[in-house]
């Protein structure tokens, strides 16, 4: 058996090669290299503004890179977008949806737009809506624009899963999701990787990433400062300590903010 480094490119679910995005003077993503092996649950962690969302936007074909490549299952996202997007399921963070559809209507639109069979769309939508506990809202005719932040995450995840992709790219999937729904979410994602799918999530909740992911990359100032298996990156301490050690943190002295609680 060859060692992991020598596996040819198609062995990776997602590969970012020297990926770079400049916004004027600012370098948001600075020649990032990442390899997400098939079947892995990959966590991208970093402080606010580290470039996680920008990197993921380029990886899924939403934002043109200044230079470099994003490759999904061996296919370059920017030179053959149609083929690459077939295997991608995407949950972006903070973007709008067709706000005036109900969750069921949105999934029906999305499935048919992706040219799925109507019966499959209907049965999968019904199942996703039930499992993600959006069925009450659907019964009441609640529109996506009236959903809470957590419900939006859930319907977004349903759209990402609907066409049974092999690679999921999820930007902050657990944000504002209640603990009960978070468990459901975790079960769905675990089932996804167990059946051979690959997942990349971004998050700034370290304990969540530690609990879910088998591989981690820490991103700061647009650069990858550490990556590898969870244990390699942790290097014997908790992920949070390692993260703060690499990224740097602001300590609060005793005398600062002394008025709190006074």
């Amino acid at each position, binding site marked *: 058996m060859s060692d992991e480094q020598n596996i040819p490119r198609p062995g990776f679910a997602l590969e970012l090669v020297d990926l770079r*995005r400049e*916004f004027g003077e600012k370098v948001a993503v600075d020649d990032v290299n990442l390899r997400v092996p098939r079947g892995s649950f990959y966590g991208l962690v970093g402080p606010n503004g580290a470039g996680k969302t920008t990197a993921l936007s380029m990886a*899924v*074909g*939403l*934002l*043109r890179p*200044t230079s470099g490549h994003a490759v999904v299952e061996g296919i370059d996202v920017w030179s053959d*977008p*149609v083929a690459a*997007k*077939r295997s*991608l399921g*995407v949950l*972006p963070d903070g*973007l*709008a*949806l*067709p*706000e*005036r*559809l*109900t969750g*069921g*209507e949105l*999934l*029906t*639109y*999305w*499935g*048919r*737009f*992706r*040219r799925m069979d*109507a*019966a499959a*769309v*209907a*049965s999968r*939508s*019904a199942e996703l809506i039930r499992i993600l506990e959006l069925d009450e809202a*659907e*019964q*009441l*005719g*609640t*529109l996506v*624009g*009236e959903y809470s932040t957590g419900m939006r995450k859930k319907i977004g995840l349903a*759209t990402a899963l609907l066409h049974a992709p092999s690679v999921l790219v999820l930007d902050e999937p657990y944000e504002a999701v209640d603990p009960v729904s978070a468990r459901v979410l975790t079960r769905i994602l675990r089932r996804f990787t167990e059946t051979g799918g690959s997942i990349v999530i971004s998050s700034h909740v370290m304990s969540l990433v530690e609990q879910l992911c088998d591989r981690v990359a820490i991103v700061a100032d647009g650069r990858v400062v550490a990556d590898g298996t969870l244990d390699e990156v942790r290097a014997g301490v908790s992920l949070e300590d390692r993260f703060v050690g690499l990224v740097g943190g602001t300590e609060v002295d005793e005398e600062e903010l002394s008025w709190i609680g006074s």
Partner: protein
Amino acid sequence: MDRLLISLKFTLLRNSSKGLRVVGWVVGAALVAGTWAAAALATNDQVRGSVLTLAFAGWVVGAALGPVLMSGSGTLRPDYFALLPIDRRALGRGLLVSTFVGIGSGYVVVAFLAAAVHAALVDPATLVLVVPGALLTWVFAITVSRLVYGLLGAAMRSKVGVEIAGIQFGLMFAAIFTGWMVVQAAIESIPALVRDGLPEGPITAVLDGFPSSWPLLAVEAAATGDWAAALGLLAALAGLDAVLVVATVAVLTPRQEVTARRRTGRRLSPRLVDGGGILPATQLGAVIGKEYRQWTRDPWRSLEVRSGVWTGIAIGFFALVSGEYAVLAAFSGLIVAFMMGVAALNLYGQDGSAVWQSVVGQDATSIRSDVYGRQWATVLVFLPHALLITVVFILLTQEFWVVPAVLAALPALFGAGSGAALITSAVGVSPGVDPRRRVGPNDANGNVSVHLWVVMALIAIGVLPTAAVILWSLLVPSTALSIVTVLVGLVNGWAAAWLFGRIAIGYLQNRMPDVFTRIRYGKVFRAEASSGVLDWVAALTLRGEQEMVAKKQKERQDKIAARSRA
């Protein structure tokens, strides 16, 4: 607290567009001057009385409708203060009080003081009634204004609010298109009104019953010596004011339930979600269904539809009452078809960042389905309105000879308009405020001035064949030619829709991510240099957008600088 709210309101208003406010001040001043001039120029007491009752009623109606467009009343919203530990009723009262302080409110009271001219001329002793009368009418008008706005919710949150905003925009567009007709009618009718007053009858009876007329009636009663009746009228107005104030404070007092789930309805499209539906279960059908629902359910899209419909109705009505140009009313449906092109000129911008779905879901046919689907949905939404308005106005004018021309022009305009709108939507995507943060009626679009001209030019080019045949059939009328005209219109419309659609599809084929980045980042990240007419228009619209953003930013910085200097 009332003072705090008033100063907060002025701070917020200072941050609104200066140009619009100046226009408001000038128009308001002109209307005040007009009210006083009408009072001064009326030929006799009876004429002056009826002209002033009409003008005062106009002021009250204007005050009730105005805030939907000019944001004075809506500046402070009860829910801004929902989390503050302040007395709820005091807040409701403060919100009402803050409405009274403002330039518009000042204009209203000065206009009502025009009753002084009437009083001085009928009997100078009655002048004592004018100031209390004007103040009571002012309280009436401003309270009604705030009450109406409060009941509508913010205009864009209710169907009635959208309808009223639609009527206002419709009247505005109609006035722009047919300004000459209105100005001419006004020039002809106002001197007659000032000279002869309103004809006696139901109109004057209704106007006299309207509360804004009561101070004028009080002046007239006092002039005949009936001071008891005069004071009675003012007391009645004061009582009405008191009731309105109590009701308005109650409406403006924030309540807990408002934040609770608003929708307690039923499943919206069970058959569709269960795998059925009227439309075919294809990519194209999916886009048509999604777009049709967005058009009918989204307040900003509905406003585009309602504005277009009311523009057609208003122009038809203006033409009908003008007498001379009445025949033009028979073509009102065509206005609606034309307005569809204008309403849909920024569809991707209307979607805002939701366009990510069209990027991520791109496949070999998705862009074609997206463009043609949007065209179909737009036509399906506007066509019934255009047909209804056409039928009604042709029946009203009895000008049946226009039928073949209208039947040819409608499909041509719908085809060319839907295609032209998709071209500007694709090339000049102009984001405005992202869907969930939209509040005001103008939030959905950014700077679309270039788009408007491009759409009008493309529609004009797109309907040329039909226009030529219509002209020919008018010059040489014959039944055979009428049939040919209609056929040419149908083929022309279909061809224009297809051809313009193809242009939009060709443009978007490799640029869908650029459409998204224009919305998300306000710019396009593209290495290769662009050429061609479409790219030139794209660059032009993008520059317009960036200039508008830069201008707003500069205004804000100047203001901050000016304030820190002070």
